[in-house]
Structure formats: C-alpha cells, structure tokens
C-alpha cells in the first residue's frame, strides 16, 4: 500500500513543500529512506518504529520505502519523523489517507511517541498559508511561533496518538491562535538599561551618536572598563523595532531554532556576541546544509565582537561584504541563498595585547612593536567601515564621576528616534539608505554642508593632527548625525570638533 503525506523543509530562510511517500510491500523486512536524507533522517526509522509500537498500534515489519520528494534536494533534521510515522500508519490502513493529505505535518518523535520541538516553524507556517492547506500540525512547543502567521489553522500536538486520532476524526483539536500585537507589545522591554551605567558620560554620548546615525563603532579600553556592558545596552537606545522588522528577525531565528516555546516573536532588537574563536562560516552563514550565521541573527540589531583583533583574520575579512550590502549571499552549485544581515557593528578591543596601555594604575608590558602588530590585525578596509572609535576609560575615572543617576534608555531613545526621523525624511528617495552611516560618497558632498568655520577647522585638523584621508568622509558623516541630533540643517564647527573626537585610532596617540 502507498500513502502520501505533506511536510515542509527550509532552504535559506524560505520553506518549500516536501511530500512524504511511504510504500509498504511484502518481502523481507527492510526499511529504506530515499530523497537525499542526512543521518538524522536515516536514523528516524528507529524512532518511528519504536514510537508506533509504544503508542499502541499494531505493526508487523515488512518492506518499507520512504521517499522525500523533491528527491534531488538534500534534506536534514528530525522534523519528518511524525510525517513518516503517519505515512506508515496510513499505508498500513490504520489512518485515513484523505485527511492526511490536507495538513502539513512537522515534528520529531521520541521513542514513547511524544512529539518534540523542531526548527524553522515560522517560514514553514508562512509557506503553509501560501499552499492553502487545511492546517499545520506542529509540536506543541512550536505553537506560538507558528501562530504568528494569520489566516492559518495551527494544530499543536503532544504525541503521535493524539495526531492519529485527530486525523482519523476520532478527536477534534482546537486550532491555536494568539493576539500578535499584544504578544509583540509584551516582549518589547529590554533587560538592560542605560540608567544602570554610572558615569561614562563620554562613552554614552558616543553610543548615542552612533545609534542615531547607525554608525558602526569600535570601543577601546582596558579589561574591565565596561566595554561589554555599554555595548549590551546599545540595542535599547536604537529606534524601537517595528513589527515588520521583528518578523524578519524572528524568521531567521526560527530557522536556527532559537525561538523559545514561550515566545512567539522577537520583540527587541537582537544583540549577538559570538566568541572570537568563531569560524567564518558560523559568522557569515553557510555550511553543507546552509544556515544563517551570526551576522544574520543580528539582523535589525547589534552584532558585538569582543576582543576584535583576536578574531581570525579571514573571519574579519568576510565581514566586509555584509557590512556594505546588508545581505549575505551564499552560492552553492545548485542554488544561491540570500540571508538578510542588516546590523550595526559594535566591536571592542584592548588598547594593547596586555590591556593596560595608557592605564595609570597598571603598567603595560607590551613593546610598541607588539602594539603595532596587535592593531594591524584589523585591516584598513575593515577599519574603513567603522565610523567611530572611542576610548573607554579604566574604572578609576568612572568612580570619580559617579554621583548622578544615568539617563534612562527611553530618554536617549527618544532623541535617537528624532534624529532618525530627520534622516528618514532626507533619504526617502533612496531604497537602501535609511541612515547617515549608509550615505555614499557623492551624497556626503550633497548633504553634509559645512559652515565656513567648520570647513576651516576640518582642514586644519587633518593637517595638524595627522588624520588620514579616509577619516575625512567618516568625520563628515558623524558630524551630520551630531547636527541631526540638534535638528540643525548646516554643520557647524562644534559638530565637526566633536566628530573628530570619535576618531581615536586615526590619531598618533598610540606610539
């Protein structure tokens, strides 16, 4: 007997339908799975047979062939377990064929027949709505994530028996739905807040400017100076995430299986901080079954790279393309996948290998040559994509200035939002530009109009302070943002002066 069921799998961040065909014929007992399965799928026969038996169904082993169509696309993961089990029962006559073909089924089986959570539910749910099926049967743990998609019946199941009873019409399941807006609203609060940061006024101001213009930023300071603490709070002052942005981000997180069973949607801007031993594939995405990397998980949020120079050189170099384009394209012989990766980069580094260069409390043990080598690990082209470098002072200076409570993230975010609104208006004609950081050279000349005095100051600064030519455009962009924060049309000299302060690495203070 033959049975055909529906399931779905994810390629890139989009889902495609998979038909699960099961054929049972007489012959020597044998179980084979075809359709380019990976090891997890091949092993599913063991889980499936045990689950069927332990759920109390009669089954005697015959010759079973499972085909996952389209047969030419590689498939991975345990999410076909439930579908295969239902197919076997249908082919065996224990389940109604007609209803099976009306639902897309997902779920990993445990040996006792219960259904476990799977990855990629959100893209699959979106595809299911397009496919126009009666509903989506998913593990209970994925129900919130799937119900984000409106106009789709989502049936969460706990075990194989429940599913079979439902499909046989013996038991009715109620479809699950949530109020998306309410759910989204509930998850918008950040755990961290700038009010917790005492002192550090200069660093905080710099982060505010960076957030306002979407500028990538490099924090430099000795160990324990609070670089990570500051960077962690950066998402909380970025403009509030919109529902559309949140859905995009949730989709990527869903593919990796990062959405917890209690949440439906990512309601805050993501903050990703991979360790510096990360490989280039893990950072950017890829692999033999391509999956999104950290840059895509940070989509619409912040990618924080601590110990920046310690990252492998090739890892840092692959970062350049997504910073520039906002997407990652992974090309395989058969397909080309595109993952969105529009993030703000925050990097942190010590001033020198030992970490204490310039610290008045501890003596630095590095030679200037070592420091030079350490700094040279960040290539010029990469540094070119970072508009601001700021120094975070050692703890001593923080203590000296602590006596007032810091501003809350909300207060700062309001100002950031205002500056962003001005930029949105400015760039409304452009498709991919939405903040000052993304301005191309020709638009810099158009939109960064300097007052006479400001022009003179910038020229003097470049000559006297030994600023590099590449610093010129960055200073203009950042000063544009500073002027936007004051809602000023023209850039005056104090805007330029402040912007120059955010170019620490261009100065020859280090040797």
């Amino acid at each position, binding site marked *: 007997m033959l049975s055909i069921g529906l399931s779905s799998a994810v390629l890139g961040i989009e889902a495609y339908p998979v038909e699960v065909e099961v054929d049972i014929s007489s012959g020597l007992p044998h179980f084979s799975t075809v359709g380019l399965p990976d090891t997890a799928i091949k092993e599913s026969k063991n889980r499936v047979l045990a689950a069927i038996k332990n759920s109390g169904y009669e089954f005697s082993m015959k010759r079973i062939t499972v085909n996952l169509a389209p047969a030419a696309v590689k498939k991975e993961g345990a999410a076909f377990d439930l579908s295969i089990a239902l197919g076997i029962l249908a082919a065996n006559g224990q389940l109604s064929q007609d209803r099976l073909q009306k639902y897309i089924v997902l779920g990993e089986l445990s040996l006792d027949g219960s259904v476990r959570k799977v990855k990629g539910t959100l893209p699959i749910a979106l595809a299911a709505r397009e496919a126009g099926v009666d509903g989506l049967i998913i593990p209970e743990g994925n129900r919130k994530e799937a119900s984000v998609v409106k106009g789709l019946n989502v049936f969460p199941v706990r075990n194989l028996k429940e599913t079979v009873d439902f499909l046989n019409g013996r038991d009715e399941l109620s479809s699950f739905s949530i109020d998306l807006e309410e759910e989204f609203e509930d998850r918008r609060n950040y755990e961290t807040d700038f009010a917790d940061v005492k002192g550090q006024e200069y660093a905080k101001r710099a982060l505010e400017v960076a957030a306002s213009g979407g500028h990538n930023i490099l924090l430099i300071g000795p160990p324990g100076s609070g670089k990570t603490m500051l960077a962690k709070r950066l998402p909380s002052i970025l403009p509030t995430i919109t529902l559309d942005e949140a859905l995009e981000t949730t989709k990527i997180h869903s593919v990796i299986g990062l959405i917890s069973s209690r949440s439906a949607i990512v309601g805050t801007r993501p903050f990703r901080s991979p360790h510096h031993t990360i490989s280039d594939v893990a950072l950017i995405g890829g692999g033999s079954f391509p999956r999104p990397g950290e840059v895509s998980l940070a989509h619409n949020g912040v990618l924080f790279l601590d110990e920046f120079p310690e990252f492998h050189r090739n890892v840092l170099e692959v970062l350049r393309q997504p910073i520039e384009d906002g997407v990652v394209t992974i090309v395989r012989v058969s397909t080309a996948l595109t993952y969105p990766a529009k993030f703000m980069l925050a990097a942190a580094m010590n001033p020198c290998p030992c970490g204490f260069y310039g610290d008045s409390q501890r003596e630095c043990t590095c030679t200037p040559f070592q420091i030079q080598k350490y700094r040279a690990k960040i290539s010029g082209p990469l540094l070119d994509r970072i508009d601001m470098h700021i120094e975070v002072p050692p703890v001593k200076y923080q203590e000296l*200035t602590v006596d007032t409570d810091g501003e809350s993230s909300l207060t700062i975010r309001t100002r950031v939002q205002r500056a962003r609104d001005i930029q949105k208006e400015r760039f409304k004609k452009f498709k991919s530009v939405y903040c000052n950081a993304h301005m191309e050279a020709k638009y810099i000349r158009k939109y960064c109009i300097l007052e006479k005095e400001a022009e003179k100051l910038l020229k003097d600064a470049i000559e006297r302070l030994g600023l590099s030519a590449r610093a010129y455009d960055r200073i203009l962009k950042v000063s544009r943002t500073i002027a936007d924060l004051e809602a000023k049309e023209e850039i005056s000299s104090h805007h330029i002066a402040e912007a120059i*302060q955010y170019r620490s690495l261009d100065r020859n203070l280090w040797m």
Partner: protein
Amino acid sequence: MADKIEHWLTLNMIPGIGATRGQKLLEHFGSPQSILEANLNELQHVAGIGEYTARQIVSSRDKLDIEKEISRIKKQKVSVVTFSDDNYPANLKSIFDPPIVLYVKGKLLPEDRIAIAMVGTRRPTTYGKMVAEKLSKELAEREISIVSGLARGIDTSAHKGALSCGGRTIAVLGCGIDICYPPENRALFDEIGERGVVVSEFPMGTRPEKMNFPMRNRIISGLSLGVVIVEAGFRSGALITAGCALEQGREVFAVPGNIFNLGTKGSHSLIKQGAKLVEECEDIIEEIRCLRDVLPVSPAIKSLRKVKLSSEEERVYNLLSFEPIHIDLISKQSGLVINRTSSVLMNLEMKGKIRQVVGKMFLRVPEAQ
C-alpha cells in the same frame, strides 16, 4: 683612496679589535694598511696586543669578505668616515676610545660640534616624553644638534622634538646601519637619514646585541658637549651614557621627575651626585660656554604662539594641569555637557594649548619660552 677605505673597514671588522686596540695599533704602525701587512712578530710586540690578538689579526684579516661589505655600503647609500678623515666629528676625536670607522647615513656637518645628547628610559611616562620633546625642540630651535640613540621612549621623543621644528638630530645605533632597531622607528630612521644623520661604528648586518649598546652610549656622549638624562630607572642604560660623559669630561644634566615613580630613581641619584638639575633649556645653555653665543629664538616666532581663547575654552583650559585628566571629569568640573566639552577640547587642541593622550585624557602643553 678607495683601497684605503677597504683597509679601514677590514681593521674595524677584525674580531677582537675594538676602538682601544685599534687606536694602539694605529699609533704604532701609522696606517691601517701597514697593520694589515705586518707579520705576527711585529704585531705581538705592540703594547696592549698579546699573542692571542695578534694571531687573530693574522688569521682573520684575509678571510673577511670586504667586497661584500663595500657593495652593501653602496647599496644602502651609506658613506664611511674614517678616523683620519677631516670630517670625522671633532668632539668624538677627543675621547679615549674613538671608533676607527663610522658608517654614516646623511651628512656630518661641522656645526654638529655644538650638540647635546638626550637619553632616558625606554618606558617613559607621558611627562617624560613631553619634557624630552620640549627640551629637544627648544635646543634645536637654537641650532643645537640633538644626539640620541633611536631607542624607544625618551630617545624617540628627543629625535622627534628636534625634527618637529626643522632642527638637526643625530641618531647613534647599536647595530649595523642597515638594520632599524626598534623596527617601529623605521619612519623616524628614514627621516633622520634625510634631515639629520644616522651613525654607527658597527659593520653592516651587525645584530642589535645587548653588548653593543654600552659601546654605542660612549659615542652618544662623545659626540656631544653635554648629556641630558630625562627619566632613568635605577639600572637604566642612560646612566651608562652619563658615566661615559663624566669620563669624557662632558657635562651631565638631569631632569627631575615624580619621586613616587621608580622610573626616575636613576636621574634623581645623578642630581644627588651633582648633575645639574634642568627645568628649562636655559639651564643647559648657561652651563656650556660655547652654547652661550647661540642665538635665542626670534621674538616673531614667540608672538605667533599667542592665541585667543573663547570664554568656554578659557574655563576648560584653567581646569587642566600637566597631569592628564579624563574627559568625563573635565565635563563634570566645568559644568559643560559632554558634547560641548568634547568640541571645546578639540578646539583647544587645535590651538596647540593642550594635548590628548591615550585613554581620552587631556593635559596642558607647557608654554614655550
């Protein structure tokens, strides 16, 4: 003439022959050529040259690849000044053990006789670097050549200070002149080679070995009329230079520092022993007779340095001292918001009134005299 230089170079390259023995041989034989042609017996009987050294001369003098040395010299655009040359530095000639040969990049001038050496620790404080830069700049503005060792720290600051006002500076190396040590000073090395002069007594390709540096130090003090020690620890190499200076009859000066900083123990002990304490460049000039005639900086340059400050700039400037303080603290004490403080500090820096050091800290630049 050409083959004569070869002889000088060979003599300089024979192992076991340093400046002292080289001088003794020269005194006895008159020219390097006759030293190289002398037999074992003749060599043995020169005072201060034993049998062992004499054998070494005989055995190694023909094995040295002098052609290679000459081609390297040509390739690196280095010139050689021998002890008998007219342009051999006059100051150096008068010391007990002058080098027989100097490898030179750039040009030695007769004016370099009026020179002051400035040396100190390789791990200076910000204060030390500022002092070295300021003093060497002021001395160089008065057309005094600044001699130092191109090492990290104070030496680097001393060279930079002199170059910053277009003055002359002499770098003395402890390695072959084709090697730049420390490597990060490459740019400085090249600049001194163009606008000042780099010298070394060591053959091409000599590595910067530990034992070379005390030998180099005697040249630093030998080239100068006096030695200024800016920040030296208790066992600093700068103290060796000071010792050489005393042996050679040069003046020794020392700049006081912070007594809590161990890095100034050496310079303070020099002051206790009678080195002259230096606060400004006049302290150096008045001590050395031939320096007194050197012209002071013209008043025109002085007036250029006067700049006007706005009231906010004045307020921030008055808060600053010669100890670096952090921008957050400046903002708090001045009552200006942080972005305002930021831009005011940048303006002050552009006006040359203050400077920034690592860690977003600011301090005053001392007023030039």
